[in-house]
């Protein structure tokens, strides 16, 4: 195991939201045994332990405030392939990236991994169908453990749902170093009471009393509801109950897709097109992403730094990004799509298409260049303003309140005099408003504006954290959503797993 005392500028003390923490030591276990010994030692001495994967999180969940930072980066192997009634699944260690899973599955490179069930690798390899792991969290180089801990989602949630829907099981290491395998369907609460014996370990606790909002895309805290599955309480829990040391994620059959980026004359026309497409049975898009005019302009500026990014057409333009199935109906889909584009004031020839891997990679790089340029911008500010961090919203609302919420972003951020761009998953009524901070005064204003918007999203029946999790950055919103009683319920549940309260302190609850 590698251990060292981190310098104050160590990359182990920061994640992509750019808040910086501190730790007495960094420990990088080589294997589960080392991790188990380390956790046991910290547990016995009540040393706080913060778990980090590949630190691509956006809410400070892996940022330590004292104690030991444990990086799982060496637990990074794909273990094997299994098969059950639902289909094939991949078993991995926590720090395998989503990209690595996608590639392994795509190429069916199974020669160096194990059969989790009888002959699963051979059956997977010889199956004529192609498969994929359908959750695309945008950041494909994040760890699967981190994705599960935050119930990550992304554009494809529109069709396939969030990470939660694709997790078969996790093996969880408790703070005392013991592990339990928690598999879907095996441990169900009776009402709000969980009484489970898992791998010889008795887990008994009350599920927090609030009802987790499932009407919208939501990653805000513990998935509390009646008769909940134990696995669902672990997914999206920001690591406060245990350390995921193994995970099984399901695969699904792949089908060819054609990606499209359509440039529209203004923000309203793009929003109108998305509203028309959301439930259109003919076009039937796989996902619907939105870029306001400011986002497209940001990409244009990024092109001058990175010429590999596709350059948008000149002039004021918003954009809509959608994937269509590339099947026998593709011409009728396009006929209908062209009609809707024209109805909303656009021109179908003002667009890009791609269906080969390379072209689609370029289109997704275009999409990713918006958040990436924001990350880089905030990182550049940190030299002069160490306390600054990224401020981007992650709120979802019910579809019928979407336009109202979109207007709120403009009204609230405008009233604070803040510059911003809006882009993201409008198919799920879940955009990201990224605030372009210029100084610490902007950060103060942005925090105020963020709180106003989060409350508004909540009042409209939505969630202040749709896909990034809560971590440390959005902890206040747990109190807003679930009140003191709900927060206390989470704390009591944590005590059942982590009586010394050493794990990932500060995530979700104080």
């Amino acid at each position, binding site marked *: 195991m*590698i251990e*060292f005392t981190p310098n104050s500028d160590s990359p182990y003390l920061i994640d992509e939201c750019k808040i910086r923490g501190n730790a007495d030591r960094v420990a990088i276990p080589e294997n589960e045994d080392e991790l188990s010994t380390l956790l046991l030692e910290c547990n016995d001495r009540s040393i706080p332990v913060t778990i980090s994967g590949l630190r691509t999180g956006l809410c400070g969940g892996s940022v330590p405030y004292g104690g030991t930072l444990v990086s799982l980066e060496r637990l990074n192997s794909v273990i094997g392939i299994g098969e059950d009634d639902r289909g094939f699944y991949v078993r991995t260690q926590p720090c395998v990236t989503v990209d690595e899973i996608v*590639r392994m599955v*795509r*190429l*069916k*490179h199974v*020669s*160096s991994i194990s059969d989790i069930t009888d002959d699963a690798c051979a059956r997977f390899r010889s199956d004529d169908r192609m498969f994929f792991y359908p959750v695309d969290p945008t950041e494909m180089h994040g760890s699967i453990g981190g994705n599960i801990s935050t119930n990550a989602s992304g554009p494809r949630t529109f069709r396939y749902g969030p990470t939660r829907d694709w997790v078969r099981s996790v093996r969880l290491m408790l703070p005392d170093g013991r592990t339990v395998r928690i598999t879907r369907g095996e441990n169900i609460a009776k009402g709000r009471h969980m009484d489970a014996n898992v791998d010889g370990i008795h887990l008994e606790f009350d599920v927090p009393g609030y009802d987790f909002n499932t009407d919208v895309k939501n990653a805000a805290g513990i998935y509390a509801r009646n008769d909940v599955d134990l696995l669902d309480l672990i997914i999206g829990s920001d690591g406060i109950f245990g350390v995921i040391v193994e995970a099984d994620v399901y695969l699904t059959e792949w089908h060819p897709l*054609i990606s*499209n980026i*359509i440039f529209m004359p203004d923000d309203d026309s793009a929003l109108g097109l998305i509203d028309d497409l959301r439930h259109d049975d003919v076009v039937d898009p796989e996902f619907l992403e939105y870029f306001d005019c400011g986002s497209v302009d940001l990409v244009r500026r990024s092109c001058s730094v990175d*010429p*590999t*990014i*596709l*350059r948008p057409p000149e002039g004021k333009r918003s954009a809509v990004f959608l994937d269509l199935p590339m099947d026998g109906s593709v*011409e009728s889909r*396009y006929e209908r*799509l*062209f009609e809707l584009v024209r109805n909303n004031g656009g021109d*179908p*020839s*003002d*667009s*890009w*298409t*791609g269906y*080969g*891997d*390379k*072209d689609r990679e*370029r*289109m997704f790089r275009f999409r990713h260049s918006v958040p990436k340029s924001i990350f880089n911008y905030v990182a550049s500010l940190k030299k002069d303003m160490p306390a600054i961090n990224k401020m981007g919203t992650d709120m979802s609302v019910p579809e019928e309140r979407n336009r109202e919420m979109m207007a709120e972003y403009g009204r609230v951020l405008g009233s604070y005099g803040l510059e911003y761009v809006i882009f993201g998953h409008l198919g799920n009524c879940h955009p990201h408003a990224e605030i372009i901070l210029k100084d610490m005064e902007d950060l103060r204003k942005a925090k105020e504006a963020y709180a106003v918007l989060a409350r508004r999203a909540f009042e409209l029946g939505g969630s202040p954290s749709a896909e990034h999790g809560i971590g440390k950055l959005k902890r206040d919103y747990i109190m807003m959503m679930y009140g003191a009683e709900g927060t206390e319920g989470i704390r009591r549940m944590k005590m059942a797993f982590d009586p010394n309260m050493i794990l990932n302190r500060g995530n979700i609850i104080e």
Partner: protein
Amino acid sequence: MSEPRIIVLMKEVPDIDLVTISDEGRLERENVPSVADPFCMMALGHAIRMKKDMGAHVTAVTMGPPHAEGMMRRCLEYGTDEAILLTDRAFAGADTLATARALGCFLKGQNYDYVFCGVQATDGDTGQVPPELSSILEIPIYSYVSDIDLTDGVRMTQMYEDECLVIDAPPKAVVSFIRYPETNIPLPSMTDFIDARKKDVTVMNAWMLGMPLNMIGSKGSRTRVTGIATVLKRKKEPVFIEGNDVSLAAKEILKEVGI
């Protein structure tokens, strides 16, 4: 010059980003999809730009297996006027000379001003086909071209290791392109995609080219690949140097590498 005729040579190659090397040093190409070679895409991008800027007539051609038709259809979507697939079992196993002969045979029957191609392909990396074609067709070659300026005739920039030449580039010639800057060709639009579905990829075999079978494919090849070896670098275990003294750490590193 008005409305030049350009023929772009395309090649389908395995996606090298997905090719991995096994622990035994073997290239793992199974299930790796084929893509248009990125050097060829540079050639295609410049041809399409000349079509848009000066009305060039662009024909894309490839010699390859039947499934290369998909790549040729994509060329039509990018805006080429024609797409031609030369495919025949007799072409199989061609080395660079046999490939250049087949392509040369096709080109001799065509009306063109420029033959655009990549400097090399990412699967073989020989870089031999463009000069061989220049020799077979008995026309000049402008190599290592990175850009074309159309403001005053056709002027090309050639990038060499330590110099950059700007040349007047009269037709008729082979032009081989490097990947500089990294490919950034605008993608086809949705209407380009639909319009291209109304066009056909022309398929031609060896007989239609009038090629003697002993001049093409493995029979017409003068080289054979007898083996492929990968040089595996020995992986060293990382060495961690503790402490805060940077100069001491630097000395340790120098000692470690034997200086």
